[in-house]
């Protein structure tokens, strides 16, 4: 199975190519440049260096949320456009699950946290069963950091963190966690398209690939205008 995967859900732009269970190439940049300028040139670099024939790819994969709304859409729109033009199915991989994969094999609870502003994090918690499969312990959602910390304490197990929420909430977690914990190193903190590719293969094998036209980001949060409108309407009841 041949899979081209991208992730532009956060600070890092990352592309990877997986062929028959072998990771042939990964390219990641965390250089503050806009993903719309970097992502497609990175795909092109990978395609050229690995002599990939796009028409022979089986699936396209993308980290489809949560994450930066704009970043997610750049990745998803890119994969949707590619899927349309080369007529291949696509796999949307949950960003948090892919981040948990940075700690694959860890014996404990893996908790990816992404900064969602407004004192919240997009988070979930997983335990690996049979790699790459995992069991979800805390459902992905946006949590107040206090709420998440309580949930983790209640689990009573060692927690492994990853994600761009780590530098933001490290101090808070150090002060408030009552369980053992481990923060990531520079090498396994952020999103990586290699994880997306491996998980996409698992999803594709389960028959969860879809037509590119139906792929949509999972934002986990409504647009601000919609929230405010709902609050206003509810207030009137």
């Amino acid at each position: 199975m041949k899979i081209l995967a991208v992730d532009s859900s956060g600070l890092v732009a990352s592309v990877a190519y997986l062929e028959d269970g072998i990771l042939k190439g990964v390219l990641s940049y965390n250089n503050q440049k806009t993903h719309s300028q970097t992502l497609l040139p990175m795909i092109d670099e990978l395609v050229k260096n690995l002599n990939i024939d796009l028409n022979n790819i089986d699936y396209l994969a993308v980290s489809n949320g949560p994450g930066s709304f704009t970043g997610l859409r750049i990745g998803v729109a890119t994969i949707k456009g590619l899927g349309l033009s080369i007529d291949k199915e696509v796999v949307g991989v949950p960003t948090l699950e892919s981040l948990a994969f940075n700690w694959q094999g860890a014996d404990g609870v893996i908790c990816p946290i992404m900064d969602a502003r407004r004192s919240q994090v997009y988070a979930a918690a997983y335990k690996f069963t049979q790699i790459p499969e995992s069991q979800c312990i805390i459902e992905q959602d946006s949590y107040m950091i206090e709420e998440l910390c309580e949930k983790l304490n209640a689990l009573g197990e060692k927690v492994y963190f990853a994600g761009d929420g780590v530098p933001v909430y490290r101090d808070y977690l150090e002060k408030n966690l009552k369980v053992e914990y481990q923060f990531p190193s520079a090498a396994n903190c952020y999103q990586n398209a290699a994880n997306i590719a491996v998980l996409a293969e698992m999803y594709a094998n389960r028959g969860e690939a879809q037509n590119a036209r139906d792929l949509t980001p999972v934002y986990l949060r409504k647009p601000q205008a919609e929230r405010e409108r709902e609050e206003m309407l509810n207030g009137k009841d």
Partner: protein
Amino acid sequence: MATDVKILAIESSCDETAAAVVKNGREVLSNVIYSQIDLHTLYGGVVPEIASRKHIDKINRVVEKALEDANLTLKDIDAVAVTYGPGLVGPLLVGVSAAKAIAYGAGLPIVGVHHIEGHISANYITNPQLEPPFVCLVVSGGHTHLVKVSDYGEYEILGKTSDDAAGEAFDKVARAIGLGYPGGPKIDKVSKEGNPNAMKFPRAKVGGSELDFSFSGMKSAVLNYLNTARMNNEEIVQADVAASFQQAVIDVLVGHSMAAVDMYNIDKFAIAGGVASNSGLRAAFEEACKEKKVEFFRPEPILCTDNAAMIGAAAYYEYVKGVRHGLDLNAIPNLKLGEKA
């Protein structure tokens, strides 16, 4: 011309997700527009994040439909064109990212198009005989530009708004008199029942170029009139306010446009943009141009609103000049007319 050039064009700069196939810049083979207007009406204007989310859900469908309606596949297409500015950055990025990926996957060149150049080029579709040079007034919800089109793809801004766009003023006045969003079509309709001379709203003059516009003063005058009338318990005739406001806008737009035609000694004039489908405005321009013996051009109404066919038309003239954009083409929300990335 050796061979036909067929361009697949994509437009997503505001609240329309659109795709089209255009042949040789003039012949529309398909023109698919998915309008989100009902969604944004709830909020009294376009909400960028909601628009962006809708664009990503619709983008493949409109492109597939455009190819299907044209009875073509990507193999028949020569280039992919996309609006890369000006507009709302979130919505633009969806179109730009998808268009670049479609082009890349199909091995086709990418041509980035300026949204306003697209609006102007809508005239080439409806009016096959139209060729530069001509003066064009672009009026829409976000833009009010008086432009000299010296040649294909060569634009000189003669005047622009120093505050609100004309369409924006329509929206604000419509809201104030209880007509709601979108203001342009609603005011146009109600105005037909009203007296355009019932009130005299100022035809604002601004500093800078004598061809520049200002609509904020006009809008404020309407709001002041409404406040005063309400305080004095005077009856407000909605149709009269709408008609008088519309007349004030028309007077300024026509006045400046005809001044530009005289100043540059050009005998062709065109309008473009969403407000160009305003019936009062069209009638006034027809009359003014006739009086001056200036030939008057306008796109058909479906090509006045945001659409991708106009992007395909503009892209053709760029394409034949050899303009190609790279895989790193970015959305530029404040892209200036005549400025190339």
